[in-house]
């Protein structure tokens, strides 16, 4: 089979070691970018003359909203890969991303509420973005609940992947319909009417924060996928072997052969 190389990298055994080496770097990148982002949000960005200091919440609200959507896309991407090539690791990545994505969706809802109160005088308004985020949150919950309800890991992987794909086809339709509904009912809409000179600083701050969140999400997903690999593969030989060599895992150990244990025997 021509995809032998692909199989090597998508083998949970190889990936487990690789992920373990990458995680600290992603956490470090997230911490550095987060510090830079916070510096921009609190010290470089000036006070908004309409909203006062409350507007600083967008530096967490907007990146969280962006990333919550992006992670759903990534999840669907992994799901599609898994269904197309039947690689277990892709399904595991999809499940590993979901809780982090749901957490960020919750963050964007929570910060949206805390921003809404001083800005519009209400904890919750049916603004197009907040409403879409709420539905996205339900989509994440549905994905996780479905996977949790299925005992057979193979079925859980595939069923989750399918609902993620169905969801990702629907997200644009949902967003469009909510927006349409919102304008028809003259609902509140989030507008950042700030001076153009300030917009550049704000955009930079939001981008740096989004990058920080991105790095964090990768680190968290990789840590989670390592847990999933351990839970699923606890019967295979490579896990036993590696656990003996836990403090300094050598990638040169003959792991590849054992990794395909379940498919290969």
């Amino acid at each position, binding site marked *: 089979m021509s995809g032998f190389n692909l199989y090597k990298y998508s083998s949970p055994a190889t990936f487990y070691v690789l992920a373990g080496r990458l995680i600290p770097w992603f956490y470090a990148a997230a911490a550095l970018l987060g510090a830079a982002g916070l510096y921009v949000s609190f010290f470089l960005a000036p006070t908004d003359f309409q909203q006062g200091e409350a507007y600083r919440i967008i530096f967490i609200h907007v990146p969280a909203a962006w990333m919550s959507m992006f992670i759903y896309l990534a999840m669907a991407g992994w799901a599609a890969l898994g269904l197309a090539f039947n690689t277990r690791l892709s399904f595991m990545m999809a499940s590993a991303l979901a809780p982090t994505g749901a957490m960020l969706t919750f963050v964007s809802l929570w910060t949206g509420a805390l921003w809404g109160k001083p800005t519009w005088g209400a904890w919750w308004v049916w603004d197009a973005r907040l409403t879409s985020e709420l539905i996205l949150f339900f989509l994440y919950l549905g994905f996780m609940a479905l996977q949790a309800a299925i005992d057979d890991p193979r079925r859980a992987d595939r069923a989750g992947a*399918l609902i993620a794909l169905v969801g990702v086809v629907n997200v644009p339709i949902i967003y469009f319909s909510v927006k349409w509904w919102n304008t028809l009912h003259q609902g509140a809409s989030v507008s950042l009417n700030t001076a153009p000179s300030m917009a550049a600083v704000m955009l930079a701050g939001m981008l740096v924060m989004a990058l920080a969140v991105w790095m964090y999400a990768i680190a968290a997903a990789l840590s989670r996928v390592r847990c999933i690999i351990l839970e699923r593969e606890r019967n295979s030989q490579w896990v036993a072997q590696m656990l003996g060599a836990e403090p300094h895992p050598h990638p040169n150990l003959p792991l590849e052969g054992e990794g395909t244990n379940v498919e290969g025997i």
Partner: protein
Amino acid sequence: MNAISALLRRELTLAMRRRGDALTALFFFVIVASLFPLGVGPDPKLLHLMGGGVVWVAALLAAMLSLGRLFAADHADGTLEQLILTPTSPVVWIAGKILAHWLVSGVPLILMAPVLGIQFGLSGAELAVLMWSLLLGTPALSLIGAIGAALTLGLRGGGVLVSLLVLPLYVPVLIFGAGAVDGAISGLGSEAHLSLLGGILILAFMLTPWAVAAALRISIE
């Protein structure tokens, strides 16, 4: 084609012999819609404004309630396996099953809707728009819901899970369906809403049978 007409006949015969199931969902629809005036008060102006949305939400819940009948019984008694093993393409018989499900659970909702609309003081033209929107919307609900029904086959707590999976996906149908009635009430017109609803129906009709076929394969393994 012979197989599909046999399938439709079988589904409709079964529904006729189990009339109670379809009637339960219909009564649920009526009761949910009738609870709203009790909850928000009998102000005719308010009820008139809410009417379209309330009937639509009730239709959505009733459609969801009947999803359990779509595949669960066939799964339990082995018929589903036999259907998968027929030479007919799964997409075709799945579309047939969803059509039968809509005839049994969707059409009665459309026919009952004007009665509920009158409770909310909707005028004749508004009632017509309500029925049109349901005619375009309820098949989409059956199609989208079939994915959830197929994925949750045989799971514990499947009923609640279906609602969690399916209700977020129903949002666009609800928005355009209720929006059409709103458009008729406010005089803004409802053509745009109805054509968007039609667009969703076409899209759902083209895509969901494939998704359901994949979901059934996954669930039956």
